[in-house]
């Protein structure tokens, strides 16, 4: 089975390349998303996320490199039959109502009229637009449009969902609804490729994370692995003598003094050494537990490191 999404050495520049005035949107980007994975696609504004998504959807053409979606080139009708897509800044024909828009998309998707007639009310209910069926989309709030966008992406039960900032413009309740939809898709074994800024939510259901910055891929891998890699071990002790604090700080430990005692954060490879030193120095080791860094911490660290290295 081919990967759901495959980027190999993809480069894309905007503007005049010959005069050197071009802006590099993607620089030799390579990654894969396996079928059935929920993959978070992260990066600061202007990192190249939307360019990447537009390239995989066939809206833009890469200057070099190879892209495959479900084993087909971008824009291939055979791949598009299995894709549900929510673009960034979702836009629809404002004079249509939600049922008419969904009927239009059902016709484009080649859905049978009977299937569409059953599916549309179901999706309107899922998007919580019941009671607004006669309202033109031009009168919808941003959140309503966003929910309708997700509903149209689910119209023909796609195998791959490509979502570019699907939760932007949604209130916390709306974001929770989207999260539930994504969790249900994950349980059905669908592949989801999702660009978002809401990292805390992504952490709850993503299998894999790809982080880009300034058009370059700076980290990719299974989320659990990435978070573990950035994690530390916390050793809770009653007190730490000053000379021991100097030694541990020299080994990269972070000492946090509190009313209940002292928390020593060390790299997992140094945990045994730190515990033995503390014990030998007469400190009472109360507990020891792993501390996973959050996706947000990891993201900010990686982006900051990437900025420094450039």
């Amino acid at each position, binding site marked *: 089975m081919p990967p759901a999404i495959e980027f190999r050495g993809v480069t894309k520049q905007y503007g005049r390349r010959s005069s050197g005035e071009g802006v590099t949107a993607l620089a030799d980007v390579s990654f894969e998303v396996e079928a059935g994975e929920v993959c978070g696609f992260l990066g600061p504004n202007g990192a190249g996320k939307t360019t990447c998504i537009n390239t995989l959807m066939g809206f833009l053409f890469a200057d070099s490199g190879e892209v495959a979606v479900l084993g087909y080139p971008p824009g291939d009708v055979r791949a598009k039959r299995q894709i549900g897509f929510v673009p960034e800044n979702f836009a629809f024909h404002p004079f249509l109502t939600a049922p008419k828009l969904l009927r239009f998309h059902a016709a*484009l*998707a080649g859905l049978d009229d009977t299937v569409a007639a059953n599916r549309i009310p179901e999706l309107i209910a899922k998007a919580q637009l019941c009671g607004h069926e006669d309202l033109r989309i031009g009168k919808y709030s941003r959140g309503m449009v966003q929910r309708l966008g997700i509903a149209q992406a689910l119209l023909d039960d796609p195998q791959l969902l490509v979502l570019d900032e699907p939760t932007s413009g949604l209130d916390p309740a709306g974001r929770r609804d989207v999260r539930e939809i994504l969790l249900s898709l994950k349980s059905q074994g669908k592949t989801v490729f999702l660009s978002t800024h809401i990292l805390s939510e992504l952490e709850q259901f993503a299998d894999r994370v790809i982080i880009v910055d300034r058009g370059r891929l700076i980290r990719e891998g299974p989320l659990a692995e990435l978070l573990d890699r950035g994690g530390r071990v916390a050793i809770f002790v009653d007190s730490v003598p000053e000379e021991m604090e100097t030694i541990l700080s020299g080994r990269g430990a972070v000492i946090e003094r509190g009313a209940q005692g002292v928390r020593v954060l060390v790299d997992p490879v140094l945990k045994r050494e730190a515990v033995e030193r503390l014990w030998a120095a007469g400190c009472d080791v109360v507990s020891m537990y792993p501390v996973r860094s959050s996706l947000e911490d990891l993201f900010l660290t990686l982006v900051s490191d990437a900025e420094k290295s450039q």
Partner: protein
Amino acid sequence: MRIRAIALLTFSGFLRNKLMILFLTLFAVVVLLMMTPLMVFRAQAGAPGMPHAESMVLGLIGSIMSLLSGFGSLLAAWAAADAVWADIRSGTILAVLARPIRRWEFLLGKFLGVQLLMAAYVLMMLALSYLLAAIGGERIHPAPWLLIVYPLVRYALYSGLAMLLATVMHPVVSFAIMLVIMVAELIVAPASRAPYLPAWLKAGLYAALPSPELLSEARFLTITEASLKQTSPLHHLTVLGYGLDWALVFFLLAAWLFSRRSLAP
């Protein structure tokens, strides 16, 4: 099914377009204003010294319809230039082209949507020409199909060219180029009396540009039934084939260029 859905949505979008509503209002005002001389003429028709009533009424109707037909060419060019661009500008094209549809199918849907609009316009013109003839107390000699098919083919040609230009440039620039082409066609037509152009240039441009004169339905309005009979079916076939050929070439070129362009807003 997909192409039809896009064509119908495009047509439906045009009917809600503010610029279109303004255009049709202007159309109605112009028509009302032009009815006045016809009514005056009819009032004087019985008076002595008015022997050529039929040719004068038909001539007047021909002038009105020529003007409206010219308006139609502008409308076809603007609608085609804006049809795809508006979707790219608003971003609606992304959700549409994410569906299992090829780019040329999308463009064909847009093109047919423009043709639906122009068909509605042609039917309005046809109804108007019969109304004007009734007001003038005369009858229209040519068969209705002539007054429908000729302008439709001409509008298909103009919309194809405008769509081709709009795939590579801004629609306003495309529309401006279309205006220049239309004016150039009038200047280089054999009937034109533009003395400031050298004959070789006129002949060259006449050969290179599509001829709206050939595809004009208004010329049939001013001639009598006897003259009409002299126009053979082969002539109609050749002229209409000529127009459709241009339209097809423009559309195919537009589809080829559109398949290679970026769709990011």
